[in-house]
């Protein structure tokens, strides 16, 4: 159930949001609810009473002959948009919040993905999930409809994270399904050592898919609110760094800010968009931040590419 991830109140606040791919918004493809089109090859949806302004060509004349009333035939077309969610299931996603108990990046990514799946489902889009962990992939094939949503959420709930990003990641299943109308939502903390996540994004971008990168961070990671002398243990590499947090704060913030800026530019180079999501922030605000932020201008994207 979607309410296992997102409560009903939050869902209600998300009703007005639409998941629109950049290409669509830029006019390069169909727009939202273009599936409410009528024509050959379209699947019948319903009849409705004729209203002034309706195209007379849409009137079902046979039905008029039988009922002596004007009915307009409406059909739904399956959306061409497929949303793929790439979930980072490495050990670093087990990072928990120090402000909210038992609230990890993994759980937040599950809830966020569930909310976006729900929005995709509402729009009639197809969606699938690929979880990337140390030993490979966990795939939920793309699909649409209620049953697919339930199946997806059930599988999503069983995800756990461990290990590090795989060296030779084979995303054959993804390449087979990616097309220019696909949106690839990458949910990760983007904590990488050899640009392994970014190289995966490059391949996805090369396949013509649009990239929406959602970087999950904790509040502590942003403002480095640790105090005292601490030994920081890297969850993935098991590297231990002992620092005096007071001395290290300035350096950390400078380095982290530089990395964020670099990552932002790299994703922009790939024609995608990076959203940094703080896991302590309410989910509806994060979803709203993701779906309502203005797209980078073409010029900005080109500047980023340079």
């Amino acid at each position: 159930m979607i309410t296992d991830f997102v409560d009903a109140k939050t869902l209600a606040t998300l009703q007005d949001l639409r998941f629109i791919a950049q290409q669509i918004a830029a006019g390069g493809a169909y727009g939202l609810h273009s599936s409410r089109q009528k024509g050959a090859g379209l699947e019948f949806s319903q009849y409705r009473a004729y209203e002034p302004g309706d195209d007379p060509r849409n009137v079902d004349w046979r039905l008029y002959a039988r009922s002596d009333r004007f009915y307009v035939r409406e059909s739904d077309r399956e959306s061409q948009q497929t949303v793929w969610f790439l979930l980072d299931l490495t050990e670093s996603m087990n990072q928990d919040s120090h402000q909210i108990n038992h609230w990890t990046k993994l759980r937040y990514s599950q809830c966020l993905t569930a909310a976006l799946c729900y929005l995709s489902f509402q729009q009639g889009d197809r969606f699938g999930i690929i979880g990337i962990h140390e030993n490979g992939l966990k795939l939920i094939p793309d699909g649409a409809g209620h049953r697919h949503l339930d199946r997806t959420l059930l599988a999503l709930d069983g995800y756990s994270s461990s290990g590090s990003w795989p060296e030779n990641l084979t995303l054959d299943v993804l390449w087979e399904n990616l097309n220019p109308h696909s949106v690839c939502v990458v949910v990760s903390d983007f904590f990488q050592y050899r640009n392994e996540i970014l190289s995966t994004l490059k391949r996805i971008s090369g396949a013509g898919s649009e990239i929406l990168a959602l970087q999950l961070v904790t509040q502590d990671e942003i403002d480095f609110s640790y105090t005292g002398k601490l030994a920081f243990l890297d969850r993935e590499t098991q590297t231990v760094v002992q620092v005096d947090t007071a001395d290290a704060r300035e350096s950390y913030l400078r380095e982290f800010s530089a990395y964020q800026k670099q990552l932002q530019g790299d994703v922009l180079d790939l024609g995608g968009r990076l959203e940094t999501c703080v896991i302590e922030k309410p989910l509806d605000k994060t979803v709203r931040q993701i779906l309502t932020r203005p797209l980078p201008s073409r010029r900005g994207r080109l500047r980023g590419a340079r």
Partner: protein
Amino acid sequence: MSVLYPLGLLGLLGLLIPLAIHLLQQGYHKTVLVGSVRWLTASQKPRWRRLRLTQPWLLALRLLLILVATLILAEFIIERANVGGPHGTLILLHPDVTREQLDTLDVPDGEQRWLAPGFPSTALDTPGVEPHGLWELVVEADRKFDPQREIYVVTTDAANNFSFAKPKVGRDIRWQSLTGSTSRKGVPEQKVPAFIDIVVDEDNSEIVQPITRAIRAWQSVGVQTAIRFRDVESSNLSQWVIWMSKTEPPKDYEGVLVTTEAEHSVSNPRWRYRPLRKAILVQPTELSEMLLMSFVGYDQYAPEPGYPVDPNSIRLEQTSSTSDVTKSNQSLSPWLVMIFGLLFLAERTTSLFFARPES
């Protein structure tokens, strides 16, 4: 200023404990799991730079705590007087003791002085002044000499017949007695008071027996006594008065007052500035022995049969009493305990202030 227990100063080694803890704590870090440490590696510093003292105020408080605790253990005191050398054993010889007798005793080498007023050196001749009571001399020696010095008191066995309440002193005084000594070398002949007034209440029948016993003892050494009731005029009082009345002694009396009433003793602040030569507080039952010991001489007094004689019991034990004598040492311990308490509170407060929050 000196210490009663120098070995207690070994506690100063404890200063190394907080110092070591503060230094070793540099290597102790609470572990925090994070997603990545790539932005922290640049801020890692060489180990020698990390080996610096943290929370110096807390360290200073902890060092002070141990320092004060050590001073309390070593019992720092301020001496009132320091007669003679500050170190070594002090042997106080009763004027009756001969040097030959001293050689037979197991007494360590040390400075030898007469157990007499002024504690003259035995290099000089026997003391020519009238000796006071034994206990008073011992108390005075305890007060005057360095508390670190070990004091041996060598007396004749007659002094062992000494049963009344022992005065409280600030150190352990060792007692050595000589048997068979009859010598009264150096004791002035004119020490016996010629006349003693005894002032009693008419209705106090409890003191009849001790008074009778005392009078009998004093008469045996030629001391004349007179019992007067409390309404006697003060002008008739002799130089020695045994005041056994519950009424207050005459305020202008300047002699030696021996009283059985604590209310009239020198420990009573109201009596502290009286023009008395001496005021001695005794129990009625110890009246005869005390006066004989103090003013007549030990060997002249023949104890009654059955009187408790236990040489081992004549050992002045160190007490923590608040008598005038102990106070005269002006021990710093109470102040140090108070300072220790304040430091402890400050340390706890500072410790909480510096407590590392959960990260």
